[in-house]
């Protein structure tokens, strides 16, 4: 048997030092490749011999390196972007991998650099909005935080920013995401076939990796838009050893709107703004050890101040903060370790007063977590990953306080809820034969709600008749379970592959929503005595095909998903029910299921790139306490969903982008009958979500004008004219949102008119829409 040795190292961008995630290092002689991990690390263990390593990454020049493998070799590979002046030979296109090759099922990468050329609402480039154009991912148009993946709710998406969980990923009730695209390097969405490494959510993973910061020279970029401005600065701290990036953004609607609000009006002095800051620094101690520290801090603040006696005043701040510290350690060429320590915090609060009355409500969640993740590469056929994850959660489900003058009402502050969540996992991405590859994994997760906890004991009528106090650390309820994950690929020929996946996921946190529109009042609720963990089992099957020499790729995926222990608020529940009661008193439980087919065709290369996606799906829920147990459409049930995304690079100055979406209208519950009590109109509702609003559709267009990437410089001495890259670049993005001015339904309400006597009574249904045609302009710069 031949001797074996390992070639390993990092793949980075030669100009910025950024680690290249998901680049393939191809061993030409074996016709096999290995991928880089999230930190750009690769490792291939081969029989001794001479090999040629080829690294390909779209937008970068192909890199070939010969390696004579007689001992373990460390090879750091630096890729250069294709030189702009060599325009003719440059391959343009998406910086993402072909779906046909990978084992990943239902996994999508989004090219961050493409985002800026797509149209965006008010010119605000938005990662969350862009992923909603992918098949199987649904949005609810404007004004809805969160996204829905394959019939799962918005709480079932694991959103990670540098490994830290982000609980509320949007600003301004869902209009803008909290992620500032300037600071983002990589976006990965997994909507099925979740590897065992990920857990704690049943629907999808959206993993966002921030840029590390240029470790060679100082750069900046930013933009000035209609409603906000942003600035990103990055550079070396110690050249080629340590770098930083800081990115900040703030809206100025409040400042701009002020002159237009009549100072006499009731709500003069009110305002809304949000800001966020991303920061990251890293330090490379050696090729074996590297440290990262990243943080996010964002706040939305809404103030309503009535300027007259007796009028109400409100202050509503909310937002996220995350900090994660990471340590990469290479034990040997075959073993890579990443350890992450995380703090994540989400808070919503609402305080109001009027006359002598005061009222406040707050909710939130804080996590302290640790993740230890080993990547092991025993030989070129295996990529093994194992480790453990632990999080200590502190939930504040909903705290209410009310006072009249100096008399506080006796509302018990519901105690904060504490919980341990832990998991161990192992997975292997195994190349069984040249055609068959399988990623098999197993995750074991554990959750315990622990004291201190003040449990109310109620009688049948719902009155509190006593309580039980749990001491600090005492277990109130605990759950655990196995989560098997399998996804596999069988290559039919060079252009076709079939993939299948199965996974079971458990989720120990639930988002309870009072309204049909996602608002920050929605509350995160942990599993506990009455609230069982959510569970989802998903089966998926797909056919992937490359077309026209990989210029195009297409896929068809089918899925079926069963969801257990879903929650809804009981009919008529409202946030104040939380006082003097257990945190889970107003909830009802049931199950759900979803199935669908997703069609996707993408043009990857050329001046024109983009995709067309179509999803047919059905999502239903069944709750014994709702409609007497009759199944009803879920709020995020959409029969048809179409999205078209296109980008066109006309020349090196002009780029055009366009998006179109169409989806079946949102389900809503409307009253069917009416009656009168005390002379007032009472609505009688029948089937939950039994009514469909009008379909949603919208076309957006954008055009970006860049200054020339190069300029001619005349040498003062020789008079020689040379073409050099511009150090300072800027661009204008013009975009039009809702080009054909469609009035998409946001919600429907009923208006009554004519109250003088009966004959004048008029009932009308009215549809409220948010955005009519909305042009915007943004100026971006980089240096």
């Amino acid at each position, binding site marked *: 048997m031949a001797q074996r040795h390992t070639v390993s190292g990092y793949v980075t961008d030669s100009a910025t030092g950024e680690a290249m995630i998901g680049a393939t290092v191809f061993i030409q002689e074996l016709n096999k490749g290995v991928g880089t991990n999230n930190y750009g690390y690769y490792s291939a263990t081969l029989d001794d011999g001479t090999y040629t390593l080829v690294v390909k990454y779209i937008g970068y020049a192909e890199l070939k390196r010969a390696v004579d493998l007689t001992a373990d070799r460390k090879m750091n590979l630096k890729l250069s972007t294709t030189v702009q002046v060599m325009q003719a030979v440059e391959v343009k296109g998406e910086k993402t991998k072909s779906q046909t090759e990978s084992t990943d099922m239902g996994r999508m990468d989004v090219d961050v650099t493409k985002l800026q050329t797509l149209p965006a609402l008010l010119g605000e480039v938005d990662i969350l909005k862009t992923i909603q154009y992918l098949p199987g991912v649904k949005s609810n148009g404007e004004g809805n935080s969160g996204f829905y993946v394959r019939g799962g709710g918005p709480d079932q998406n694991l959103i990670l920013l540098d490994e830290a969980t982000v609980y509320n990923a949007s600003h301004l009730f869902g209009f803008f995401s909290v992620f500032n695209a300037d600071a983002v390097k990589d976006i990965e969405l997994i909507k099925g076939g979740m590897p065992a490494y990920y857990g704690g959510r049943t629907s999808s993973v959206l993993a966002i990796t921030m840029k590390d910061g240029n470790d060679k020279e100082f750069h900046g970029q930013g933009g000035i838009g209609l409603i906000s401005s942003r600035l990103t600065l990055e550079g070396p701290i110690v050249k080629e050893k340590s770098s930083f990036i800081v990115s900040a953004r703030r809206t100025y609607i409040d400042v701009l709107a002020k002159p237009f609000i009549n100072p006499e009006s009731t709500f003069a002095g009110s305002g809304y703004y949000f800001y966020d800051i991303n920061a990251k620094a890293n330090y490379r101690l050696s090729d074996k050890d590297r440290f990262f520290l990243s943080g996010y801090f964002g706040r939305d603040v809404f103030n309503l101040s009535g300027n007259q006696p007796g009028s109400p005043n409100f202050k509503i701040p909310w937002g996220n903060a995350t900090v994660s510290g990471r340590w990469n350690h290479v034990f040997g060429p075959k073993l890579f370790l990443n350890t992450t320590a995380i703090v994540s915090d989400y808070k919503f609060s609402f305080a109001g007063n009027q006359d002598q009355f005061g009222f406040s409500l707050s909710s939130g969640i804080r996590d302290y977590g640790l993740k230890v993740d080993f990547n092991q590469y025993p030989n070129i056929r295996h990529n093994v990953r194992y480790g453990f994850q632990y999080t200590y959660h502190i939930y504040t489900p909903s705290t209410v306080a009310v006072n009249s003058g100096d008399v506080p009402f006796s509302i018990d502050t519901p105690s904060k809820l504490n919980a341990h969540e832990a998991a161990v996992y192992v997975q292997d991405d195994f190349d069984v034969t040249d055609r068959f590859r399988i990623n098999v994994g197993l995750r074991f997760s554990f959750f315990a709600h622990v004291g201190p906890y003040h449990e109310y004991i109620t009688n049948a009528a719902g009155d509190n008749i006593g309580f039980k106090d749990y001491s600090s650390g005492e277990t109130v309820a605990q759950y655990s379970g196995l989560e098997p994950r399998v996804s596999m690929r069988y290559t039919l020929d060079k252009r076709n592959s079939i993939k299948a996946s199965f996974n079971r996921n458990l989720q120990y946190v639930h988002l309870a929503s009072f309204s049909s529109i996602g608002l920050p009042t929605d509350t995160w609720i942990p599993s506990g005595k009455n609230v069982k963990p959510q569970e989802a089992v998903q089966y998926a099957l797909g056919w992937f095909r490359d077309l026209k020499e990989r210029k195009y790729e297409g896929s068809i995926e089918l899925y079926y998903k069963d969801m257990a222990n879903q929650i809804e608020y009981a009919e008529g529940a409202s946030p104040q029910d939380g006082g003097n009661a257990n945190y889970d008193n107003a909830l009802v439980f049931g199950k759900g299921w979803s199935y669908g087919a997703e069609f996707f065709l993408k043009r990857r290369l050329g001046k024109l790139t983009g995709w067309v996606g179509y999803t047919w799906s059905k999502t239903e829920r069944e709750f014994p306490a709702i409609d007497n147990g009759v199944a009803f459409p879920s709020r995020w049930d959409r029969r048809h969903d179409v999205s078209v995304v296109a980008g066109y690079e006309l020349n090196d100055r002009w780029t055009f982008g366009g998006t179109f979406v169409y989806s079946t209208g949102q389900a809503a519950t409307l009253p069917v009958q009416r009656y009168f009590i005390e002379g007032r109109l009472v609505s009688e509702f029948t089937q939950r979500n039994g009514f469909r609003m009008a379909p949603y559709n919208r076309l957006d267009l954008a055009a970006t004008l860049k200054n020339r990437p190069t300029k001619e410089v005349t040498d003062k001495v020789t008079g020689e004219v040379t073409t050099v890259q511009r150090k300072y670049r800027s661009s204008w993005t013009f975009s039009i949102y809702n080009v054909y001015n469609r009035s998409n339904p946001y*919600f429907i309400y009923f208006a009554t008119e004519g109250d003088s006597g009966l004959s004048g009574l008029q009932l009308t249904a009215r549809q409220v829409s948010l955005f009519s045609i909305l042009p915007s302009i943004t100026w971006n710069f980089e240096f």
Partner: protein
Amino acid sequence: MFFTTEAQRHGEMRSSRATLPTTYLMNVKLILLAAISLPLLTSCEKDITVDLPQAPEQFVVEGTIEPGKPPFVILTRTQSFFAPTDINSIANMFVSGATVTVTSNGSTWTLDQICSDLLDSSTIVLAAEATGLSVDLLAAANICIYTALDPSHVGVIGQTYRLDISAEGKTLTSETTIPNPVPLDSVWFKLALETPGDDSLGLAWARITDPDTIGNGYRWAAQRINHRANGEMKDLNYISPLGSTYNDKYVNGLTFDFNEIRGQQFFGGNPEDNNAEQGFFKVGDTIAVKAMSIGRKEYDFYSTYDANVGALGDLFSTPANVKSNITGGLGIWAGRGVYLDTIICVP
């Protein structure tokens, strides 16, 4: 924001009271909505036609029994949400010819049906006062109510009353108890100062001491018993504004102050409901206050009723049907303990 709920339009939420969080939270939704649209200033709305599914008709009971008063029962039927709203359609809601009995302590009273076509114009005014229905409606259509004409058939505190109704082949039953009345410690009028310099409009205030037993429910009603220049009494009957239903979940055993806006009838058309006086009492008014004690099921009904009426068609709230205590139909059969007081409105 060009968006109003029924409650807003009637001015009942105009001066939100903070005594209990319910009212606040209704406002929270409106504020959040305003927050969404204020900065963007692009929201628009239009009338649409919605095609609602059909549902089988149900009977709706509105029945009360109070100490020393005969039972009053009105029986109506549900209508399709967008059914015509002309006077015939409204009159057709009322069910006549029903057999209505009230049973207590083994004795059964069969209630008498009184229909408005038999009443002369002065009795119609009295009937309007008793039922809360408008004089116009009572005069224009044959509307029947069920009550006991025998003066000995009146409610007694602490008694339980069973209601049986049969009409058009349907039977409905319910049961209620008249709870002990809880007195108000004091009542007064205070200027609201909603607009600077205003020296006439205000709210009714009261101080209450909740008994130290959990599970008390309350509902407030008020009636302006002074007259307009033309000699009409300002309110013909007691009116409960929306959101005037409470329980002692958060205030058990406490003494505290609360305020109430002036409620208005849907079928009212009081001249004061269409000007700045909407929702307010005015200096010079005399207010008859009726503080009612109610049981748990009755509290559930009135509180869900307040929420349902206040949130008409508002998708910001979880859609919720009113919790009825009627078996076989919708509506309420409420025994109510009553405490009466009077406020003279002086600045």
